């Protein structure tokens, strides 16, 4: 997370870290006691579920709890190094017990609408800047939704942002997701402090660069796919 700040304990209790050999590679969001939602591109290199470990809690070095992965379900239309349908669900080897520091995030209905300039948060253990260091503590940054039209302008992403994606950040750059935040949550607070998962960190050019905001997989667009795989 570029230009963010360390998150308070239990602020984002659904945030999880996907690791291989103890190395954090991607973020993910807890959507039930046994299912995570993340990006498909996280598994471009390591497809075998047995190689992965999931950790929960605000720090990587002393996790609240860890789990192995039982299965990884990647969207059928996803193709490596493409941006479309960059979504996957992960089943934990055994359910977690919820607590004040471990909770699930709400999934929006497919009809859930969010308007440009809405304030949202993105969180993760990704680099603090392009090619920068990786933190041990979870980072957070508040950004804004940018309309796909603006993000598809020539000087931004020139038409690469499809309807299954959502654009968030600032055209002025700085506050942004970064490498290692992939798969993590973009959330919005709705109706009495309840947080909904709007997006999944997917791609972007660099981190915090002018006219290059972050692009997220639009969760509402895949709501029925998630239901079909997890029954949530």
């Amino acid at each position, binding site marked *: 997370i570029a230009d963010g700040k360390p*998150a308070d304990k239990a602020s984002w209790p659904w945030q999880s870290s996907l690791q291989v050999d103890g190395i954090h590679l991607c973020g993910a969001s807890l959507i039930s006691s046994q299912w995570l939602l993340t990006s498909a591109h996280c598994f471009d290199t390591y497809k075998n579920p047995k190689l992965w470990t999931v950790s929960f809690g605000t720090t990587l070095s002393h996790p609240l709890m860890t789990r192995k992965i039982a299965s990884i379900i990647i969207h059928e239309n996803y193709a490596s190094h493409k941006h479309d349908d960059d979504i996957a669900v992960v089943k934990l080897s055994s359910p977690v*017990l*919820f*607590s*004040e520091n471990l*909770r699930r995030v*709400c999934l929006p209905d497919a009809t859930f609408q969010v308007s440009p300039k809405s304030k949202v948060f993105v969180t993760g253990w990704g680099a603090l800047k392009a090619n920068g260091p990786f933190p041990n503590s979870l980072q957070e940054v508040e950004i804004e939704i940018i309309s796909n039209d603006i993000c598809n302008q020539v000087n931004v992403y020139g038409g690469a942002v499809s309807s299954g994606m959502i654009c968030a950040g600032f055209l002025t750059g700085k506050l942004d997701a970064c490498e290692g935040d992939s798969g993590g949550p973009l959330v919005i607070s709705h109706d009495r*402090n*309840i*947080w909904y998962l709007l997006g999944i960190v997917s791609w972007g050019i660099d981190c915090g660069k002018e006219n290059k905001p972050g692009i997220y997989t639009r969760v509402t667009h895949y709501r029925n796919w998630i239901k079909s795989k997890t029954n949530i």
Partner: protein
Amino acid sequence: MYQPGILGRRKCSWKPWMVALTTTAVLLALAVITGLLVYFLVFDQKSHYYQSSFWIPSITYSPDLSIEQSRHRTNLKQKLINEIDVIFQRSSLKYYYVKSHVVNFRPSNDGLKADILLKFQFPHNNVGTLKKQADSILNKKLQSTQSSLKRDISLPYLREINAAQAENILNSDCGLGMEYPPTAR
């Protein structure tokens, strides 16, 4: 004849260090006693969780009560929790009552049933007594005509459940995280 020298009255002359030592010892003893009192009265409390089930004859079950974030479910949950809060916060258990949580709603042939979880902080030594008190407070209140809640005869008394399981239930609602926007200080 020598007047025997009169022995000066043996002055009890405590040396300053003896006075300081004694004072410190007395203060220390007082502090330990106070600490133990505070610990056993305040800190030696433990969380206890109880399941209960209420019958609400005035409300008919509807499918949107099973939709997690539906307004009907959210509002009805809040209404029940407020009613239970008032019952215990105005009772002799007000210092022990922590919170309640609506676990779920169930259809019932004559109305609606709500499964509830109650959390108390009880001192070690009289959990049983306090639980009986909680039961009798609930029964008295729910029998009054003002209350829209009635005891579900299938679960007439509070049933204790273990902490991990209870915390799992208490934290099973989705989307509870950072307070936003941050409350103005």
